[in-house]
């Protein structure tokens, strides 16, 4: 028990257990809030289900990708110039299969040949009918030769045996292999690549049959690849504000004081390019919406206290004037987007469409709003207006990619995003929904 003066004791006796009237509808309000809180605590099965689904899809694709990589697959490009190795076949079979016109000398030499041109126990193969690339693998010390791709499918490599004494050399890039004079030579003819196609290497001249050509690694276009992408963008917010009942002071107060300005976002994500056309991506998005709050009130009153030297209030004074409140409201959202896209090549560009869902995991408002009793209220202090999550939003847009190098591409993505669910709590009279027109630019890196 605290020490009290008789006067204070009288106050304590009188007011400790005093009662006051409570409004009739108080319990209904409390009950409604309790129900809302219970609803909020319920798990969000759709969200968990889709997260598990996304993880499963990416896991499967990762295993699928790892399987091909283990077989020697090599990805060189985020764009479709990634290539696969092709099964090796002996050169003799190639020439035979292609029905090349054999010369009598060549027939004779082929008959005398001990076998296919080989090195390191690998057989050389030049496939037919495929876009092929005989790429240089510097790490393996191999020669490189490209049989270019589109437009030359009919140009098959041919080999001819020539005299034993022909001087010969194999030139590829910087490398030249000496060929013994006594060895039978092989002449490789190759069609030049078309204009605009990269010429990785070239093989010319004659070579002894006894020397081994480096085992070529032949590739075809790779169509599946994982990619990382980051992007940032800005957009225009479109707000839809409704009140129940339709016209009241709070509606007009908020409508007149708040104005959506802009939104910006940053994204980072992981994706998978399937068949070089379909892309699946997911990741993390930080999204911010900025609004202007501008409240102007004439004839506003403010009470001012005056204190003496001891800090005791001696006077109060009502000051009338114009009240101006200017600030910016900020709504910060964290989303997990899940997108599917379709891309098609148009020259050096890739054009596509992308659509998907974004699962909001957090919404935190800050700033000020005007309440129906014309009071300026801080959003940070109110938990009963805005939800802590806005649910699912959908988005759709166009996508335009341009490759920078073999693994990197930049893109621009104009899109429309819509939040179909209200951002305010169900018990609150304001129904606020947002849509956004935005444009993102970013970088995509394959690996």
């Amino acid at each position, binding site marked *: 028990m605290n020490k009290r003066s008789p006067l204070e004791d009288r106050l304590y006796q009188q007011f400790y257990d005093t009662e006051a009237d409570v409004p009739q509808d108080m319990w209904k309000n409390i009950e409604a809030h309790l129900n809302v809180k219970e609803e909020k605590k319920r798990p969000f099965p759709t969200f968990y289900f889709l997260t598990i689904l996304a993880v499963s899809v990416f896991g499967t694709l990762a295993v699928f990708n790892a399987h091909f990589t283990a077989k020697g697959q090599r990805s060189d490009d985020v764009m479709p110039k990634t290539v696969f190795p092709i099964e090796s076949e002996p050169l003799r079979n190639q020439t035979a299969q292609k029905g090349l016109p054999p010369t009598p000398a060549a027939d004779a030499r082929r008959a005398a040949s001990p076998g296919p041109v080989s090195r390191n126990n690998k057989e050389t193969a030049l496939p037919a009918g495929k876009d092929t690339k005989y790429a240089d693998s510097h790490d393996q010390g191999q020669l490189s030769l490209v049989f270019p791709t589109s437009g030359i499918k009919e140009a098959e490599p041919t080999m001819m045996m020539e005299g034993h004494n022909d001087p010969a050399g194999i030139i590829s890039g910087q490398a030249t292999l000496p060929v013994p004079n006594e060895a039978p030579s092989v002449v490789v003819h190759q069609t030049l690549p078309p204009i605009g196609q990269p010429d990785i290497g070239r093989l010319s001249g004659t070579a002894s049959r006894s020397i081994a050509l480096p085992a070529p690694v032949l590739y075809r276009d790779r169509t599946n690849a994982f990619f990382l992408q980051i992007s940032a963008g800005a957009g225009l917010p479109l707000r839809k504000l409704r009140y129940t009942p339709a016209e009241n002071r709070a509606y007009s107060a908020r409508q007149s004081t708040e104005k959506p300005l802009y939104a910006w976002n940053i994204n980072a994500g992981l994706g998978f390019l399937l068949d070089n056309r379909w892309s699946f991506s997911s990741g993390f998005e930080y999204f911010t919406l900025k609004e202007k709050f501008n409240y102007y009130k004439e004839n506003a009153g403010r009470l001012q206290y005056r204190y003496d030297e001891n800090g005791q*209030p001696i006077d109060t004074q009502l000051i009338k004037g114009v009240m101006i409140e200017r600030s910016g409201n900020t709504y910060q959202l964290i989303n997990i987007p899940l997108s599917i896209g379709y891309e098609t090549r148009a020259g050096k560009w890739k054009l596509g469409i992308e659509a998907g869902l974004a699962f909001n995991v957090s919404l935190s408002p800050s700033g000020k709003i005007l309440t129906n009793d014309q009071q300026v209220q801080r959003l940070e202090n109110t938990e009963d207006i805005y939800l802590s999550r806005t649910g699912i939003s959908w988005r759709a847009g166009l996508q335009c990619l341009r490759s920078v190098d073999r693994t990197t591409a930049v893109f621009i993505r104009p899109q429309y995003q819509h939040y179909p669910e209200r951002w305010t709590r169900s018990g609150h009279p304001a129904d606020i929904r947002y849509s956004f027109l935005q444009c993102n630019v970013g970088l995509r890196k394959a690996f």
Partner: protein
Amino acid sequence: MLYERYSRLMMAVCLRYCKDEFLAQEALQNGFIKMFHSLHCYNPELPFGPWIRRIMINCSLDQLSKKPDTVDIDEVNYAGNAVYNQMDAELTGAELMCLVDTMPAGYRTVFNMYVIDDMSHQEIAEILQITEATSRSQLFKARNYLKNALTKQQKMYL
């Protein structure tokens, strides 16, 4: 039912801190919501009354912190009338409370907590996140303020 038993009592508590009836109602509502969500934290060996009272005081203080300490001109007049137009020699409890209500919020809060809700300085310091010394100082000033107000009133009687 807890609500029926405690709502009127707690409304009076909230009114003492918030002064404004609407703020008090909001504090009461938030207090009951908080109380129902925190029932699992309640220790049945301790009395229930002080526990719920403390929740209500916390909610009232939250409400006070949201609203700047300004009063309407009508309210000021009312408070002034309560002090200066009192002509009875013997002040009733309600009139004394009117005097308490004219105190600045800081004094009033500590005075209410210490005198009427019987909280120690340690508890007050914990709730208001101030030091015990500050709590003592605020109480001292509140008492002085009340004393001055009563003296002023005595002079007016004379």
